[in-house]
């Protein structure tokens, strides 16, 4: 097993853990955290491919990861704000109880 393969497998495992959390948790905040984990696993792929790629001096992988981290931060802030607004509206963060589209 080469070491790039190790990084890719770890990234796939992190993605699966994040996906499992996003699909199975009841708390909306933890679902958002699962999505953050999936974004992180994609970042790990960017960095691993950059390091093992043919032209690491071009810095493209690092740039992609930096912009991806910035976008994930914006997503986390807006997502948590939406969860707070939904909590204020419905009084719960339990996704099984958030089952109405109107009012």
């Amino acid at each position, binding site marked *: *097993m*080469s*070491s*790039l*393969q*190790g*990084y*890719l497998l*770890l990234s*796939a*495992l*992190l993605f*699966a*853990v994040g*996906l*499992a959390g996003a*699909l*199975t*948790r*009841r*708390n909306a*905040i*933890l679902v958002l*955290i*699962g999505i953050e*984990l999936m974004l992180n696993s994609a*970042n*790990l792929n960017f*960095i*691993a491919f*950059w*390091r*093992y*790629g*043919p032209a*690491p*001096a071009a*810095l493209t*992988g*690092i*740039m992609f*990861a*930096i*912009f991806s*981290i*910035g*976008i*994930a*931060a*914006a997503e*986390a*802030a*807006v997502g*948590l*704000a*939406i969860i*707070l607004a939904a*909590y204020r509206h419905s009084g719960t963060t339990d*996704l*099984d109880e958030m089952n109405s589209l109107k009012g």
Partner: protein
Amino acid sequence: MTASFLILALLTVAGTAAAMGLRNAVHCVLALTLGFAGIAALYLQLGAQFVGLAQIMVYVGAVAILAVFAIMMTHKPGQAEASVFSSHWIAGGVVAAAVFAVLAWAIASSEAVFQLLPPQPDVTVQKIGDALMHRFVLPLEIMGLLLTAALIGAVVIAMDRKEETK
């Protein structure tokens, strides 16, 4: 495949799995910081120092704190939850396991992964700054605009509207 990689991978997977499985939401975020720190250490091991430190600052520093604040603001004391997992948890777990199986199969059968490690590139912060200011200046500007819009949008969405009607 070195011992340090195995230790960091184990730490990261343990932290993230605990973050997705623990009962108390605050404990979940604490375990999540362990997972994020493990990913940052993997970045450092891959030679991407700037990204590793940005990961620590953004995720361990900001996102985890934000999540703890949101959990504390939405926490109801004395709330006895029947289960932390939703009613469709079996389907969700099966989907996640299937996604991992497909990804692992694709990685294991790919021939692109048998590359040798190229020599360590000399990545200084000055080079990253040069690239951000020359080749990637337009994405940088768009990122600044996006972050400003997200900041304003988050404040507007989370604002308590009851004050306006009074």
